């Protein structure tokens, strides 16, 4: 935990209440925000540290969101793009809970299928559904398997 307590804290100010997501692979912070559907329009105060030196990851990103505590389900979805992320829930300036991401069996409504001919992309009244494989994800409708650049599938909506 040394690098998160020193490097990171210097670069990103402490928050009073909210969530700190650390050990995100360098360059993925904006995808993490997208997956959590945080774009600032909701008024959340968001701090992002990108490509911060890290002992463990070389370069890492850090995201702090004020006044928002991530749910277990949200945390699990993060595992698709940030498998080693650590999540600290902060209450009254102190870390009150530490969460680790674990890979869910499926993710619903988060990713959009890259197969343009998939029925889940055709405006039907359904949420996209992906089964999580050891090394990728698989569309629950058309069976398409995606292994590279899963972040690109994050549904901007």
């Amino acid at each position, binding site marked *: 935990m040394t690098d998160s307590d020193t490097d990171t804290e210097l670069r990103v100010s402490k928050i009073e209440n909210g969530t700190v997501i650390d050990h995100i692979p360098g360059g993925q912070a904006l995808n993490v925000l997208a997956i959590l559907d945080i774009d600032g329009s909701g008024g959340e105060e968001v701090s992002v540290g990108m490509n911060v030196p890290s002992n463990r990851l070389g370069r890492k990103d850090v995201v702090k969101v004020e006044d928002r505590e991530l749910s277990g389900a949200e945390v699990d979805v993060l595992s698709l793009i940030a498998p080693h992320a650590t999540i600290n829930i902060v209450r009254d300036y102190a870390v009150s809970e530490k969460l680790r991401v674990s890979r869910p069996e499926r993710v619903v409504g988060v990713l959009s299928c890259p197969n343009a001919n998939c*029925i*889940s992309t055709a405006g039907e009244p359904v949420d996209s559904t992906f089964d999580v494989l050891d090394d990728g994800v698989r569309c629950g*409708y*058309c*069976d*398409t398997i995606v292994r590279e650049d899963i972040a690109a599938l994050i549904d901007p909506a």
Partner: protein
Amino acid sequence: MRHDHLIGAKQLSRADIEAVLDRAADFDADPAAFADAHPDALLGLCFFEPSTRTKMSFDTAIKRLGGDSVDMGPVESSSVKKGESLADTMRVIAGYTDAIVLRHPSEGAAKLAADFVDVPVINAGDGAGQHPSQTLLDLYTMREASGLDDLTVGIMGDLKYGRTVHSLAEALTTFDARMHFVSPESLRLPRNVRFDLHESGAVVKEHTDLDAVLADLDVLYVTRIQRERFPDENEYRAVAGEYRIDAELLADARDDLTVMHPLPRVDEIAPDVDRTDHAHYFEQAHNGVPVRMALLDSML
């Protein structure tokens, strides 16, 4: 077999398949004997893309079982044209019928339909996805011709978009078949089918040239390479010509080689093959009715 829906071949166990094929053999032997099997059954035929054979064989099958069908008609004249979702169309038709046969141009359509209705849905082809009822009649044809044990099967043509190929390959994993896939590089099996074959521990080899395996095969399953897959006509012709078989080429095959094709063919099987003992594709098409009778009988 007792399934609510038939969406893909993966859901079929060997026992499921054999039960349908055994029952199909009864229907095949004496179709008239089952004319009162399902007198009140009404089958919804929902074909969002044209398919004469598949539709007619389901239609014939339900009528041979004493039931009847209602047909959505061509998409051009339906409310789908007005932008109605598939989910809504299916819910409405499920209210009229006892089972739905769905052909749709999008992958995953049958899966989606099944999520919205209480009646059984049979996937009669979803885009480049699956076509499991075709697979049952393919297996029936293979079983009649050579049995289903210890088979060496070659599958040739458009393996990427060929839904009949995807379903057949997945179903063959429940038998001890060795599979050889022959296609141009650009039309190899899609990643998801390869993944499933690998997961099931199937013995699979991929080739670009039929010569490499022809002499070993018990069954050669030929599919059409579709012209519209190629941006350039010349490119299409160069590729398609490589995957055409004729009687002369089959001289190098085993005498008991069974040649199959889901039809329609264009020119991938020369007419002179029709006169050889290898040709089983018309028989295969004929088997569509008893096999679909058996399938409907198990689901209604």
